[in-house]
């Protein structure tokens, strides 16, 4: 039952979260801010992934291929050419490179389906990882690449940049998913033959999804490099990083975009809270993720929606 008095909770909740998010640096320690900064970038990774999987129906097991391309392109440019190029040029170049990677990834996606495409994305990550290791003089190899520039040394500023970036990316991706394009994408993901018979160019729409997903992944990867000051395989490319992103998106609730962000913040936060337990922490978080995926396949947001529908 809809009553006149009840205000739709979504805009209200969004406003509260935004206000809390913006004002946090005034009350919180640098440690928490640093943690959340990483969480916010991870949130963008997860949201970009959700656009591809949840809507276009493409199972990308290698989100870090796109992220790594963005991060390393930006990092290498800066390391080689600083101080002759501005940070934002490097970041933009990273995003562009990721888009190129996204288009490359889309080509096999339009030919092979399901598990085979998933395999292609995994191999793409391994190739990128090997390239980074082999061309160590350029990329820093296994030790990592340190960049001369950082965005800011203030934890608060870094936090605000990450938060703002996440909010803007989230708004764009969420808006897109709710727009007619999102509907057509979802229809193409569910039943490509029928979408074609309804007059939609499925290939074009999927390519678009790849480009958007790659753009935001690359942008977030590049920005994160200039927050951390280094780029390494273990933070940007390793398969386990990709798995974390996928778990975050599924935990939060797939096909929701916003859920992916919630999942990412939760996952990073949990990992940190449980850190005193040592190796046990990873295990606990994994078990929790497994539990949610098994019993609430629609994730956190799915649980909420399920309850509101039932009540």
């Amino acid at each position, binding site marked *: 039952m809809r009553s006149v008095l009840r205000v739709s909770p979504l805009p209200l909740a969004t406003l509260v979260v935004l206000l809390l998010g913006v004002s946090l640096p005034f009350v919180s320690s640098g440690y928490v801010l640093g943690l959340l900064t990483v969480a916010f970038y991870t949130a963008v990774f997860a949201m970009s992934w959700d656009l591809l999987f949840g809507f276009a129906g493409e199972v990308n097991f290698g989100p870090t291929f796109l992220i790594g391309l963005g991060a390393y392109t930006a990092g290498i440019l800066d390391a080689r050419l600083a101080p002759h190029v501005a940070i934002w040029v490097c970041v933009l170049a990273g995003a562009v490179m990721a888009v190129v990677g996204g288009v490359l990834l889309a080509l096999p996606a339009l030919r092979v389906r399901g598990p085979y495409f998933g395999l292609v994305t995994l191999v793409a990550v391994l190739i990128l990882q090997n390239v980074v290791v082999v061309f160590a003089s350029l990329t820093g190899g296994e030790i990592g690449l340190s960049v001369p520039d950082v965005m800011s040394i203030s934890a608060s500023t870094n936090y605000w940049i990450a938060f703002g970036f996440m909010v803007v990316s989230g708004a764009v991706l969420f808006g897109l998913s709710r*727009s*007619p394009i999102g509907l057509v994408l979802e229809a193409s993901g569910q039943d490509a033959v*029928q979408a*074609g*018979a309804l007059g939609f160019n499925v290939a074009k*729409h999927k390519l678009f999804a790849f480009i958007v997903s790659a753009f935001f992944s690359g942008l977030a990867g590049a920005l994160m490099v200039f927050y951390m000051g280094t780029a390494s395989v273990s933070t940007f490319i390793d398969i386990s990083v990709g798995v974390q992103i996928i778990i975050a998106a599924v935990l939060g609730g797939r096909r929701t975009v916003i859920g992916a962000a919630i999942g990412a913040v939760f996952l990073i936060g949990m990992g940190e809270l449980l850190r005193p337990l040592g190796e046990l922490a990873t295990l606990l978080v994994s078990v929790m993720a497994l539990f949610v995926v098994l019993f609430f396949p629609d994730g956190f947001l799915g649980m909420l929606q399920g309850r509101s529908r039932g009540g």
Partner: protein
Amino acid sequence: MLEVRGLTKRFGGLVAVKDLSFSIRGGEILGLIGPNGSGKSTAMRTVMGVERPTAGSILLEGHEIGGLPSHQVARRGVGLVFQHSRPLNRQTVLENIKVALLPDRLTMIFASAEVDAQARAIAERVGLGAVLQRKPPTLPFADLRRLELAKAIARHPKLVLVDEPFAGLTASEVAAFSELIAGFRAEGRAVLLVDHNVKGVSALVDRVVAMYLGEWIAEGSAADVMRDETVRRVYLGGALTRVARGSLDTSGRTPALQVDDVEVRYGKALAVQGVSLHVHEGEFVSLVGLNGAGKTTLFNAISGLVPHNGSVRWAGADLAGATPAAIARGGIVQCPETRELFGDMTVRENLELGGHGLDDAERAQRLEWLYDLFAILRDRERQIARTLSGGEQQMLAIARALMMKPKLLILDEPTLGLAPVILETLSKALDRLRSTTRLTVLLGEQNVTFALPHADRLYVMDHGKIVWEGLPERFEAEVADNYL
């Protein structure tokens, strides 16, 4: 409106459609009919651009559309009503219809109010006006079909293709759909109905084209096509023959298999409705019905593969709650339509797996007996199952089922897609089983010619129900016309 000339579609070595020609005028409803595997659906999908034609031309209002991708075919005015579809489950009915109205552009961030009005009008027209705000998972089956219809006509296609328009619908729903489809004709659109038999669409169509094994076999009014010799032969076989054997005296005995009032639902579609049948020990019973009649579903219910209501009793015991494995061990072995061979194993390995429960001596003896029954399998012993021809695969599937020493063998559509010469071999093997063993067989077939000679008794199934039961000799006189 539509002119198809010399259309051929090949999948690898399989010729699905061979040199097919037909045409439809605006304001005309054409029925394209044929038994399962005749290529009618492939022909329809090729017109829509889902499949690329191998040869031939498809002209829409004089322009070639053959080989164009489906979204371009759609834009030129062709719409397809899918039989199965996956609607957007999290969006409402209204939003689902709106999707079909959206332009194929990436600049469309906001849908216009006009789209909303159009979507409501279409929903009203197909009878979805009352459920606009519901989501597809909560809709009854007929409404899901209406939603498909709504999406297909959203762009005002000049040519509407409808795949099995009445499958799974009740009589009153069929009437409502017929009216909607007749409405397209009244508006001057061309309509192509694809269905299994003439009977289902005869009231609606202006003309019928019949297909068999990818080829055009007859054309004319529904009545003409039903009278056509070739069509009768395809559906009923030439002269309906039967091989009598010493009649099985079953009076007073309890049937080995007793199925009572079984009902199976797939989501919202009622696939099997209140079916009762029985099979006596040693009896060969055929269940005939067209594709989609519910035969396979019924078999799966008996084998415990799908949940069902009603009771299935085997050798006096209720099978409710028994696992498929327990049922198979109990002696009911199903040889499925899809064969389910282990494609990467040899013929012999497939057979040995079938007989893994037997001891070595018995297995060897059984293998020998089967190689005797299907001589070709002995020659193919070391060949990988996947590389066998269709007929050989079918023989292997039957042989593997027989390795399990079934008491009741359920054979589902063994003749599907096989050449006549293979049918003869299978037919002989069945004859031998019938005359030399105590095996009980339940055979599901749409090919009556094949089913009739091997039957002690016959059931006819249609739209999930048993519509006739009797002896084979009465089939032609009593129900053959119903079957066309």
